[in-house]
């Protein structure tokens, strides 16, 4: 009895906080837009009994999904989101790995401070930090003023409202999510392994590629997923830093909901997004599990 209870708690949790909301969104996605409150039809009428439910089900259809397939805006937005997420994940890894490596190699007394500095940005609201990037990157912003002042450029660089600004924003925001898991694996690495590699004929560099890098693989994979998954659906950064040609599915979703008030289409977009994300999430879970097994 107690065992059933223990197992039931997480499943109930999952049911209440994930499955039920998802089913509600799915239901809206299968509905039609209507000028009403809520802005879709049909709505479920339990008072009418069995006939009401039947009538409700008969009115649901996949029209919105066929619409998504027919309009190339949507699949272009999905593709563009994937591309931006992939590129920014790669950039985050490129910047985050050396930082994590340096942290793991620093004197032990410094490490808590360095770790603290990595987490420190979280103490300020995410929105404010993205706004301040607008202040830095805009044509009258600090970056351009500085570059003009040292004479490197004559006319201000157009960074804000481009994809470049989105990359900067994403890399900045998600860098800690890359650094922390990579640092965790690098810090655990036994220094004697590197000495053993050198003893067996490796140079410092080949010892890194043959020992350090493969042994930090699980941290790299975890970090990449932690950056990649939220970036695909990112809405704030592209809408604040990106331009009109920055196409990301999070932005499309927001516009469908709030500008068009087309809840059914927006819900369909969200459902597809979730289905796309399930693949990396499952892969991420696999990686975590594999690592636990190899440690245990």
């Amino acid at each position, binding site marked *: 009895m107690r065992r059933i209870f223990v197992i039931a708690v997480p499943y109930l949790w999952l049911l209440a906080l994930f499955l039920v909301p998802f089913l509600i969104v799915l239901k809206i996605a299968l509905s039609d837009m209507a000028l009403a409150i809520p802005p879709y039809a049909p709505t479920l009428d339990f008072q009418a009994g069995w006939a009401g439910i039947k009538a409700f089900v008969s009115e649901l259809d996949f029209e919105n999904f066929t619409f998504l397939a027919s309009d190339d805006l949507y699949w272009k937005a999905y593709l563009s989101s994937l591309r931006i997420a992939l590129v920014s994940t790669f950039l985050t890894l490129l910047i985050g790995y050396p930082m994590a490596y340096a942290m793991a190699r620093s004197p032990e007394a410094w490490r808590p401070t360095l770790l603290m500095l990595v987490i420190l940005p979280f103490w300020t609201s995410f929105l404010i930090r993205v706004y301040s990037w607008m202040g830095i990157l805009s044509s009258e912003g600090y970056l351009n003023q500085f570059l003009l002042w040292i004479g490197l450029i004559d006319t201000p660089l157009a960074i804000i409202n481009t994809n470049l600004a989105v990359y900067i924003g994403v890399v900045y925001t998600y860098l800690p999510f890359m650094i922390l898991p990579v640092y965790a694996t690098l810090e655990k690495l*036994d220094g*004697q392994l590197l*000495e053993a590699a050198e*003893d067996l004929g490796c140079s410092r560099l*080949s010892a890194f590629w043959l020992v350090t890098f493969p042994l930090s693989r699980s941290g790299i994979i975890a970090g990449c997923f932690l950056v990649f998954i939220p970036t695909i659906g990112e809405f704030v950064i592209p809408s604040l830093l990106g331009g009109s040609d920055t196409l990301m599915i999070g932005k499309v979703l927001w516009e469908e909901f709030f500008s068009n008030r087309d809840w059914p289409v927006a819900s369909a977009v969200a459902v597809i997004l979730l289905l796309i994300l399930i693949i990396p999430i499952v892969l991420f879970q696999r990686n975590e599990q594999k690592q636990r097994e190899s440690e245990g």
Partner: protein
Amino acid sequence: MPQTVFAPWDDPKETPLIRFEGVTKRFGDFTAIDNVSVDIFAREFFALLGPSGCGKTTLMRMLGGFETPTEGKIWLGGQDIGRTPPNKRPVNMMFQSYALFPHLSVWENIAFGLRRERLDKDKIAARVEEMLRLTRLQRFAKRKPHQISGGQRQRVALARSLAKAPKLLLLDEPLGALDAKLRQDTQFELVDIQEKTGTTFVIVTHDQEEAMTVATRVAVMDEGRIVQISTPDKIYEEPQSVYVADFIGDVNIIEGTASATGPETYAITWGEGRPPLIAQSQRSFSEGQACSLAIRPEKVAIHAQEPEALNRVRGKILDIAYLGNLSTYHVELAGGQIVKAQEANTRRIARRSFTWEDEVWLSWSDTAGVLLAE
């Protein structure tokens, strides 16, 4: 056919494989190694023995190339290797934690060093097979390090460090992580492998029994200095200082003053009103010089009645340490000093002749002890 004794250190014509020449290593203010000079010969099994912090690991790490000497030179086969990086010297090391690569299989671990030499595949495979056979690991070639036992991991580490056929193999507390029974078996296995491969081994250990079992010569270290280098039997029987006598095995130290009574014979006065102890010593002492008489407990006999012996003292049994095959009696003398005597338990314990609080006599011959100046 008479077997020649392996003792290149006694042969002045032999050139050593390794020569430490006035090597000093400092870490900031701390002197880890203090002006050490020592020769190690080819095919030796050389043990560095000492308590933790005595510098034995630092000395070994300098041989491996992980530390560079602050002063002095280290020669390996006529070449100064003091500043050669670890990947450029014909020396391999077996690490205390084994340092097996967790992401590689046993086979790949052993092949790791060979692959760095860019040998062709067949040669690597043949060599790895040979190493697997030598360490009896063939069945585990495909396993990962976390899938095998501690003893097997130890053998993988040994196979990996021997694979490149180094001139010199360094072993850092190689058996420290094994339990007592397995350790004993492995000690003989190590000696066996060392003889089969003809490699020179240098082992670091804090376990004197291990050093005595495996080594051709033992260097006892203390505070960055080598205090004595000898064969295991000489280290035990003829320690040159109280420190060595005390560190190796169990010993009774009796302090007193020496006065000569004949050629190489001294009487040691060690307390008011007690007859002096007689001991032979090849080391000479001046009249009234402070000295210490070191006697191993197994060389002290225990009697119920006063024996006919050159040296005899009376006391009361304070404690009995029963070790199964042996018993060590802690006997308190009249002055409060405790002398340990060891007897083999040839009878069953119920028929033991002595028990707590018994008045007994202890005796030893004039050659039983070693007379030491410091």
